[in-house]
């Protein structure tokens, strides 16, 4: 069942993004930024955690989930060290993803080449 929810919720979040792309003049960059901020907001309101419980990776893999991760990180850090945690919590929680992207980016740059789409 977990797998079904992951597929459905993840798919729905992506489908909603596609609707925004096709029907509004919003560029992909703006939509992604909007998604991550929306994820922070939904997490802050306490609405994202239940979804994450239900859908697992269906909620954490899309960029909304990235926002949730940042928000949770900020909250946990504030719990530990007070307002200073607002500065450290978000990026700490996202460190794994950002570091992985960055490291694989450098490695890929060394090993791979830019490919013609023709």
């Amino acid at each position: 069942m977990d797998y079904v929810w992951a597929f459905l919720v993840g798919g729905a979040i992506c489908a909603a993004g596609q609707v925004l792309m096709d029907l509004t003049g919003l560029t992909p960059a703006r939509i992604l930024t909007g998604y991550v901020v929306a994820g922070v907001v939904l997490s802050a309101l306490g609405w994202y955690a239940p979804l994450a419980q239900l859908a697992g990776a269906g909620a954490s893999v899309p960029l909304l989930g990235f926002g949730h991760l940042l928000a949770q990180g900020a909250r946990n850090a504030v719990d530990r060290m007070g307002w200073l945690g607002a500065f450290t919590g978000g990026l700490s929680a996202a460190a794994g993803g950002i570091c992985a992207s960055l490291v694989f980016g450098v490695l890929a740059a060394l090993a791979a080449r830019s490919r013609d789409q023709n």
Partner: protein
Amino acid sequence: MEKGTSPRPRSRNMRLTPGEYSRMVGRASPKSPLRRDVVWAFLVGGSICLLGEWLRQAFLAAGHTLGDAAALTSITLIGLSALCTALGWYQKLAAKAGAGTLVPITGFANAVVSQAIEFKVEGLVTGVGAKMFVIAGPVIVYGTMASWVWGLLYAALRAWG
């Protein structure tokens, strides 16, 4: 008949106004095929999340904590995305899947890795290093900014409630 007695036609500016033209453009420009796009986005996006869930369950079964399993899942998906980006497969899939490949974290990785690969020719420092986050940067900036705001709000709520 003297030469040049009939008035030479004068070039004139067009009567068309920008407002009229904007309406014409709206009518002439084909819209994206919404249903097909949404179906592709749903199926591909759902599949990537499904893969993510499979990985997460596998890591949990291997004995990792919830937090570690989540991190390992992200890192694995990012690694797979980097590989597919380097091989040129991600671009081919994304050309059809649109938001299905853009919205998952694999899209974020693709944005970073594709920039890195593209600008290697401009040097490891001034190409790869400097330009890696050109596309994905706003996500990090505004996501972190939003979490900072939330963190301060939460600290205030804690202090007063």
